[in-house]
């Protein structure tokens, strides 16, 4: 049993998804999805523990040895992200029952949970697999199901948002498959480990060069790197709150993982540097993305959109840290991946709580909620402080490592730009704080109060996690460091 955990990680939610249709009952289906997600969480915990004890786990699907069969490889990098994704999924699902019942008609609940579990399957599959084509397959599974999740939003604009995402996402996926296809053409293999061995022989060919180009652009579309982020704000704004919380915490993180995996484990960072000015591109796009989207966030009137823009800005930080090209920089990226998921999951769940009571995420509807929903608003303030990077929150740890990595590289001007940009976060977070605490309520209704415990508890699990991992960083920093050393050591 224990040696089959890598495949169970993907198989459990994959089988659980269609079963949701059979369960059908709106109440039961939520519990069912939660238990499926909890099992995947336990599996990922066990996998992480194994990796920390014994190193990389190699699992051959169906007993077929690579490169003929598909191989799953679990190492420091993906076991860490598996834990993150499965944990976020389970926590978000705890809150889903009540939130969904307010936002979706009853007959769509099972559809929602089916799509949700499929999306989870896709994300976990991308993380587990060691096969380039398999990455594409799982990416499509997760993307298609997330289009569905977004389209389920009760605002009719959710449909156009989903459609926009569908178009952009499909372009991205097509680019990725072109990249994978070209690499297969040159090397005759799809196994990442094998690709890493064989690509150096054909380094000089233009085909490989274009393969790398297509792949990277495709992934950057998926991870919403500025200026390829245009699909994201609407998608996050109009999706059901639970879907937003889940996607914001996981999907872009997994796309960043694909990028890291591809650059470090398949192509090799030195080679990428020789053929593509990737460092310059990432620095410019990262920094301009941070500023452009943070400034956009300041002007948003809808809080979900506001934090969606903020998410794009945070991706800019991760890409900038990645572009530094040192183990410390990569460590900073990996730490921020984890930390940002904690912040955004907490924030979007708390906003979900507001939507549950008030029915809207417009900034003006937050007026005076500080008195009416004290716990929810305190959670938003806590998440916001973490986003700004106040000490003792996870945001501070992220910032510390990013700045340290930039200083180590000697990039003083960028250091200052990064610090300035974190003040933009202060502005958009404080705009909310002022609405919440200094304006008088729009409507004084008795039913406007904190959401039920089933939502408050997961919100506060995440808020506490924001502080806990800001004080005890041994898990995040420890594994990120190991993963970065491993990737720079060229071991896969």
């Amino acid at each position, binding site marked *: 049993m224990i040696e089959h955990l890598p495949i169970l990680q993907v198989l459990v939610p994959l089988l659980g998804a269609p079963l949701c249709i059979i369960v059908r009952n709106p109440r039961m289906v939520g519990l069912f999805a939660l238990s499926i997600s909890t099992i995947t969480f336990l599996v990922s915990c066990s996998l992480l523990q194994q990796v920390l004890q014994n190193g990389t786990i190699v699992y051959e699907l169906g007993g077929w040895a690579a490169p003929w069969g598909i191989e799953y490889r679990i190492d420091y990098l993906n076991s860490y992200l598996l834990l993150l994704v499965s944990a976020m999924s389970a926590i978000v699902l705890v809150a889903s029952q009540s939130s969904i019942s307010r936002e979706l008609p009853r007959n769509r609940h099972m559809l929602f949970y089916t799509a949700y579990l499929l999306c989870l399957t896709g994300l976990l599959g991308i993380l587990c697999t060691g096969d380039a084509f398999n990455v594409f397959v799982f990416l499509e599974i997760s993307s298609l199901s997330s289009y569905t999740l977004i389209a389920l939003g009760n605002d009719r604009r959710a449909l156009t948002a989903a459609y926009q995402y569908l178009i952009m996402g499909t372009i991205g996926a097509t680019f990725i498959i072109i990249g994978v296809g070209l690499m297969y053409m040159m090397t005759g293999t799809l196994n990442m480990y094998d690709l890493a061995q064989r690509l150096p022989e054909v380094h000089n060919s233009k085909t490989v060069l274009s393969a790398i180009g297509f792949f990277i652009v495709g992934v950057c579309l998926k991870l919403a790197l500025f200026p390829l982020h245009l699909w994201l704000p609407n998608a996050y704004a109009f999706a059901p709150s639970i879907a937003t919380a889940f996607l914001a915490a996981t999907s872009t993180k997994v796309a960043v993982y694909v990028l890291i995996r591809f650059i470090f484990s398949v192509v090799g960072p030195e080679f990428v540097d020789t053929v593509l000015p990737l460092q310059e591109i990432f620095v410019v796009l990262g920094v301009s993305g941070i500023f452009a989207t943070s400034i956009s966030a300041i002007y948003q009137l809808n809080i979900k959109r506001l934090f969606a823009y903020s998410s794009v800005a945070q991706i800019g930080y991760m890409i900038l840290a990645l572009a530094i090209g040192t183990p410390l920089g990569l460590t900073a990226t990996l730490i921020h991946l984890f930390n940002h998921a904690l912040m955004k999951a907490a924030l979007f769940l708390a906003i979900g709580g507001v939507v549950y009571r008030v029915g809207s995420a417009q900034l003006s509807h937050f007026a005076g909620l500080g008195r009416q929903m004290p716990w929810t608003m305190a959670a938003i303030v806590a998440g916001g402080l973490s986003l700004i990077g106040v000490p003792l929150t996870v945001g501070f740890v992220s910032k510390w490592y990013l700045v340290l990595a930039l200083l180590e590289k000697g990039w003083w001007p960028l250091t200052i730009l990064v610090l300035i940009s974190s003040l933009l976060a*202060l502005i958009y977070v404080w705009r909310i704080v002022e609405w919440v*605490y*200094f304006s008088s309520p729009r409507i004084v209704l008795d039913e406007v109060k904190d959401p039920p415990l089933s939502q408050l508890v997961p919100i506060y699990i995440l808020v506490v996690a924001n502080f806990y991992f800001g004080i005890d960083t041994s898990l995040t920093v420890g594994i990120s460091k190991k993963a970065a050393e491993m990737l720079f050591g060229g071991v896969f």
Partner: protein
Amino acid sequence: MMSSETMLLLTILVPLAAVIGIVGARRYPNLREAVSLTAALVLIYLTYNLYRLTESGVNVSWEGLQILPGLALFFNIEPLGQLFSLIGSFLWLITTVYSIGYMRGHQEENQTRFYLCFAIAISSVMGIAYAGNLFTLFIFYEILTLSTYPLVTHAGTEKAKLGGRVYLGILLTTSILFLLLAIIGTWYTAGTVDFRAGGVFDQSQKFAAAVLLPLYIFGIGKAAIMPFHRWLPAAMVAPTPVSALLHAVAVVKAGVFSVLKVCTYIFGFDLLGQLPTTEFLLYLAGASVIIASLVAMKQDNLKARLAYSTVSQLSYITVGALLANGAGALGGAMHIGMHAFGKITLFFCAGAIMVASHKTEISDMHGLGRRMPVTMAAFFIGSLSIIGLPPGGGTWSKWYLMIATIEADKLILMAVLMASSLLNIAYLLPIPIKGFLYPDPDAQGADKKIREAPLPSLIALSLTALGCIVLFVYPQPLYELATHFLEAAGLHGR
């Protein structure tokens, strides 16, 4: 008897524990205030015992919670921190007494939130005072900023919101943009952020140190050096007890305290004296002293005038630290205590006037001394101490600061300090003088009766005024702590 480490941690935990008590007793105001008072008393007991211990030569420190590899929460008591914590805990007690009179007399709302944030702020002050490395100091520095924000915006009005915006904007901006960068830069350059006697940099790191110094001085926005001083006048929208304890003592002193610590324990006076940027910052601080005094002259709102006066007095301490000699550090350290007692008295008086006669503008205060003799007398004593005239404690600290300018051969700065003292006379003394000597324009018949502020407030402001005089007659404890600070920092002689 508990161990010294436990006591050290309790100084931070007791005010936090008070938060729970305050929230628990929110429906019973008397019990709620009793919780605050008890916590303050316990805190004084703790800081005093720690003072006794460290004076007898025991080294008290605690390290734990490794937050980042190599960077842990680290507390280490040294004389300057001892001085700061003693003043902070003692004045917390007095201010709580004062608040009871003020907040009830003024019928303020949300009093529970007020006492709660106050306790958190005091806890972070203790954290700053005992911080053994910059990392710990930074954490508590930011908590202090955030916990005082709800106090500044207590009124919840549009004006409070704007004031809070400036307050948080400047304090967080400077600390994130400059201070954090300076700390990470120090960590990267020197490999440590611990406070060490003689500093952490060696001669080869002179260039980096020269760059880091202005980052520290501007980054510690709480020291309110110009042009980053605007938050202090903005914070005056807060209820008066907040202005008194936090914006005359705790928050601003946390700023200059950090400046002093950074100058002595991170740079060391040997290095500080050689850096090319020191000179520039010194004159900037000097300019701050004089400009803020000039601006104070023009303020008619009493609290605004006091705020600018604070900006000016804080820069005295920054000047003392940057002069990089023993007398400067001595004067700076003593001025932390002297100015604290002087300024808190003045703010208490301002609040008392507001509660008893609803006056905030100085031009309306003619003849007020007849109706509020105790308050005005206390104001007079506090003013003397701020100016640096006997019998006010400020005489001593200003004396050493003057000597320091001579020792460093900076006669211009000496002239600046003297001119500013003259300005202090011009903007502070007319208030009590006109209060006592001018006729009261709206006193008619029955209104001539003495109408002072509520008794708790009156007791508090009398005590601090008395403190100003005691510190003149008997400044030994303060002086000794300041000299021990010099020894600990490795600066023997004067």
